[in-house]
């Protein structure tokens, strides 16, 4: 995927002016967060399960090489194959080669963020293979030629009217000349059109929520059933997964599964959880004849043993973005790459480089809500802070900004001076604000005052109040 992360500020400004997007984001803010809260409340063990899930993932990461090798062994023993790919390019070419080995013309696809990460669709298209997205949200954005704006709801930014227009425009060729406006009718139309595509496809490509070392299984979790039709009807099933998806046993999978849907959509359990293991067996009446797991690294192995290791616990539930005030304000596209929201702010700089993605770790109020709801308890704010430090140390960003940080740091390292300076500053600001008590313009603070007034500080500094024994205002 082409990145526009460097243009985050412009992206965000445009997003904030988009009325449809504002309505859509309001639904994320209220819908997903309420559903998660209720689901968590219904399960008294929810917090303990989060701890257990975190511990399983930590254990896996300490023994990642072992479990990956064991996983491969089990896949091979049951008729499948594992393709280890260091780079997105290698993964794309491996998939193309597999598709060509069965003379594929079309490939149906279940939802996969890794397919987005390696920009699989444009590559297949350029090589004469038509990828057909089957998850309704992915299908909608494929028609719109847009990237996903949310990791579990790729089309959350689209309105029903926009979907109606898209379907009319693209389904004309199937003889669907009436513009549907009822959501059920829209879903039915997509269902009917995709049904034959499942049957006709030569290859089915899905992602994976888990890889199980015990049995060599890949697991997808969906609500629509598209991922199942995608993998059971064509003769070849290709799974594209990143290596941190591995868990030791089915029991470990069950533990994490209990927090996945609850954190994501607030469901107790997604409708379809499917364990796919190897190829169809002798006597089976359906299922793929070939089973391939494309295992992508793309720099993840370099995160092991570093400050970023904890990011490899992520199960891509989307809870962090569902609860993020910045995501609620700018939406997913503004982040400019595959992973938006807090997880994107922490992860994207690793994939894109801090130069390209320097705005993302700064696009945070550090309210800490993301860490609070992350089922795997990833310290997202701490990792964003790490990237901010990296950006400063590597001299990324405009000189004025870095000079500002140095200026502040000079005082911050000298507590007495800092206290004196803040005492002076609030008095100066109050004087400047006059009787209205607000500042409409301030040097170096245009970013704030262009959009709103800055309330002038009142009274004395916190330290002064503390010393004077006045503990509440």
């Amino acid at each position, binding site marked *: 995927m082409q990145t526009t992360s460097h243009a985050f500020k412009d992206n965000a400004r445009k997003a904030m002016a988009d009325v449809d997007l504002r309505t859509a984001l309001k639904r994320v803010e209220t819908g997903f967060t309420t559903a998660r809260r209720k689901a968590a409340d219904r399960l008294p063990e929810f917090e303990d399960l989060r701890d257990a899930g975190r511990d399983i993932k930590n254990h896996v990461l300490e023994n990642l090489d072992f479990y990956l090798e064991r996983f491969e062994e089990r896949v091979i023993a049951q008729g499948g194959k594992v393709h280890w790919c260091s780079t997105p390019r290698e993964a794309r070419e491996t998939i193309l080669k597999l598709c060509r080995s069965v003379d594929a013309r079309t490939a149906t696809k279940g939802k996969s963020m890794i397919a987005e990460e390696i920009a699989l669709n444009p590559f297949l298209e350029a090589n004469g293979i038509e990828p057909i997205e089957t998850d309704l949200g992915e299908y909608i954005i494929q028609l719109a030629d847009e990237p996903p704006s949310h990791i579990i709801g790729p089309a959350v930014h689209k309105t029903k009217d926009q979907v109606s227009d898209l379907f009319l425009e693209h389904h004309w060729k199937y003889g669907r000349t009436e513009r549907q406006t009822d959501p059920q009718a829209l879903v039915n139309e997509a269902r009917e059109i*995709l049904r034959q595509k499942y049957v006709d496809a030569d290859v089915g490509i899905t992602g994976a929520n888990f890889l199980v070392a015990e049995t060599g299984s890949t697991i997808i979790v969906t609500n629509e059933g598209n991922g199942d039709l995608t993998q059971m009807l064509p003769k070849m099933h290709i799974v594209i997964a990143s290596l941190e998806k591995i868990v030791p046993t089915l029991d470990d999978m069950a533990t994490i599964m209990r927090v996945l849907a609850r954190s994501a959509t607030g469901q107790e359990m997604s409708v379809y959880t499917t364990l796919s293991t190897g190829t169809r067996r002798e006597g089976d009446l359906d299922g793929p004849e070939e089973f391939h797991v494309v295992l992508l690294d793309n720099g993840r192995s370099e995160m092991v043993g570093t400050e970023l290791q904890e990011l490899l616990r992520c199960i891509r539930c989307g809870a962090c973005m569902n609860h993020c005030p910045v995501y609620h304000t700018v939406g997913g596209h503004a982040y400019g790459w595959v992973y938006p929201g807090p997880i994107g702010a922490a992860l994207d700089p690793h994939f894109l480089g801090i130069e390209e993605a320097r705005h993302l770790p700064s696009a945070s109020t550090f309210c800490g809500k993301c860490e609070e709801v992350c089922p795997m308890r990833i310290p997202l704010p701490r990792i964003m802070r790490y990237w901010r430090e990296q950006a400063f140390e590597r001299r990324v960003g405009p000189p004025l900004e870095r000079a500002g940080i140095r200026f502040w740091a000079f005082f911050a390292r000298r507590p007495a001076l800092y206290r004196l300076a803040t005492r002076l500053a609030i008095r100066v600001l109050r004087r400047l604000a006059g009787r209205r008590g607000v500042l409409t313009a301030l040097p170096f603070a245009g970013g704030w005052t262009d959009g709103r007034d800055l309330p002038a500080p009142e009274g004395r500094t916190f330290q002064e109040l503390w010393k004077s024994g006045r503990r509440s205002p």
Partner: protein
Amino acid sequence: MTVSSREKILSGIRRGLKRGPLEGSARDAVEARLADLKRNLIPARGQLDRAGQLRLFREMAEMLDATVEIVDGPDAVPAAVDGFLGRHNLPKTLRMAPHETLEALPWAEKAPLLELNRGAARVEDQAGLGMAFAGVAETGTLVFLSGGNSPATVNFLPDNHVAVLRASDIAGAYEEVWTRIRADREPGTLPRTVNLISGPSRTADIEQMLIKGAHGPRRLHIIIVPDDEAA
């Protein structure tokens, strides 16, 4: 190409972990964890008595918009299937998984007008009948294992999915089902497809409105056959 990437990835991980390939007691410990198949925390909700499990299974499945019918015994299943098709004005044609339990039911006697087709499902099938391997009370989930007697397509292609479930096959939690699956198999193997199904297909991809029947079945009807004291 892939051999070198494999080595590159594994050595990268080991470099990060500051060690070589797992050896000695460290390896034994991980092997032991894998062999023990120890269960983690199981919610209290998944540990009820038999009667409680049946009640919870039904409650959870119905919450997910599945319909649940408890029949008097195996002989009552054909009429229940027939009744389901009739209630929804569906043709009296059924794609049936050729499962021995289903084959043994008195179809000709109790539902003489029903046309049964065996084998994998086809796009034109409107109703499919499968035999569930297990039910999970915790979330009202059905479990199907693919095989010559249970094609996975029957659970997904037809608009209407009817599942027969023995009451004694209802487990409290997923972990009990894993234990049962492992019991009859070579360690470290599974059938090609294990389907955990919780309610009919749905989507919320258009303005987060909940719409049923996205790609999988629009209806899920569960027929429970009481075969132990709990039911």
